[in-house]
């Protein structure tokens, strides 16, 4: 085997598809079902995020790849755009700087004034200041996107095995039944569960809650809406935080987020849900009359600097990490796969892999 990909979430599926289509022999090992972890739990927002130079390069590259791929996919892919909502003049004051930053990296971004805000999204609460529109951001349904990627990997000859992994060694994977598989490379795409195999990885489980409504009779919003305070929630302290993040699904449902907390219990926590929904209602009051039919949690794989770990593990020959994507794994899965391919075959990705190398965060062991 040339490559064993551990994990059939969206990152593992994207890597398997990329490597198998490059002509390598690829095996996928998944402990439960495809798209069962953070992939199933996530929103499926394909966005460009501007919180660092490395992040904007990775997300912009990956979004372009999604636009190239998605038209031929059954993924409910829709270019809804993102509307970042500024609640007050202070938040509005930072918008032009953010727009310039996006444009510097070739990403279309527009400042939205107060009047235009309500023309674009009449359901927003009165009294908000304006915002920024990123027109080419999109929304997809992550489980079917994963299935599409896996199907393509299988058509290129990839194989699939359902098993837990006991350990990963030099060019070797040991399954729980004691069987070993030899391989030139291992791609570890196990999300937050990567720490089960390597407890020293700089990854913490960051729990999130999401709620979904039934299908509304008519669309309430058109864009994915996020409060501009979202980045503070994403990078804030260790305390639990919530931020307004609302997504229109192609089914007519609304997906309501978001929460962040370093917590490993899977339970839905009603006090957090209550805060999250109150925040959502404060931005879109009509949500108060919507019926929520499901609430669930998931675990993001968070790194200390908010960037993923993509590249060789310097302690174990042949091991390539592809994890630590926190809330951006669905967005950045395709770019991750290109970077992983560069590490394995030398085929250059369109961005510099250096900022994402695991070595930046932990020394070789």
């Amino acid at each position, binding site marked *: 085997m040339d490559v064993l990909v551990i994990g059939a979430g969206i990152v593992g599926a994207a890597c398997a598809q990329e490597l198998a289509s490059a002509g390598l022999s690829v095996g996928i090992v998944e402990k439960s079902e495809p798209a069962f972890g953070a992939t199933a739990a996530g929103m499926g927002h394909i966005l460009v995020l501007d919180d660092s130079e490395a992040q904007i390069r990775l997300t912009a590259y990956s979004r372009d790849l999604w636009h190239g791929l998605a038209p031929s996919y059954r993924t409910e892919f829709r270019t809804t755009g993102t509307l970042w909502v500024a609640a007050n003049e202070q938040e509005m004051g930072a918008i032009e700087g953010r727009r310039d930053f996006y444009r510097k990296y070739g990403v279309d971004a527009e400042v939205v004034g107060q009047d235009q805000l309500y023309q674009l999204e009449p359901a927003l609460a009165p009294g908000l200041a304006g915002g920024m529109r990123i027109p080419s951001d999109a929304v997809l349904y992550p489980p079917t996107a994963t299935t599409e990627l896996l199907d393509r990997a299988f058509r290129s000859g990839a194989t699939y095995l359902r098993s837990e992994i006991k350990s990963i060694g030099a060019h070797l994977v040991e399954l729980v039944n004691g069987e070993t598989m030899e391989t030139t490379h291992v791609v570890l795409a196990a999300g937050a569960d990567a720490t089960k195999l390597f407890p020293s990885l700089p990854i913490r489980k960051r729990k999130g809650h999401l709620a979904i409504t*039934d299908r509304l009779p008519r669309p309430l919003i058109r864009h994915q809406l996020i409060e501009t305070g979202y980045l503070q929630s994403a990078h804030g302290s260790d305390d639990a935080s919530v931020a307004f993040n609302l997504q229109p699904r192609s089914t007519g449902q609304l997906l309501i987020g978001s929460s962040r907390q370093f917590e490993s219990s899977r339970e839905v926590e009603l006090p957090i849900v209550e805060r999250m929904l109150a925040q959502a209602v404060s931005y879109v009051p009509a949500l108060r009359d919507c*019926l929520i*039919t499901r609430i669930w949690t998931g675990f993001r794989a968070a790194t200390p600097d908010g960037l993923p770990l993509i590249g060789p593990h310097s302690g174990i020959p042949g091991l390539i990490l592809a994890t630590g994507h926190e809330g951006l794994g669905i967005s950045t899965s395709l770019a991750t796969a290109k970077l992983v391919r560069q590490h394995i075959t030398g085929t250059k990705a369109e961005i510099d892999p250096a900022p994402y190398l695991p070595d930046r965060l932990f020394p070789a062991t």
Partner: protein
Amino acid sequence: MKQILINGKPQEIEEGASLLVLLLNNGQPTQRHSVSGANRCGICGMGICFECRVTVDGKVVRACQTGCHEGMEVWTDAR
């Protein structure tokens, strides 16, 4: 005898009886359809699964958590 309307047709009821049970006993085993068109019906009977959603007097409710009352207007196939 007290009556409600189910999809426009009159139906005799006992005041306060479970709407889900009434629907199941009166030829409405499927209360709605999923996005893909698959049949859906109340599974849990205790307000958790949300599969028995119906529209009562213009509002989407869970049939299993709703008692029948004189004059109620019920439409199945809520979204």
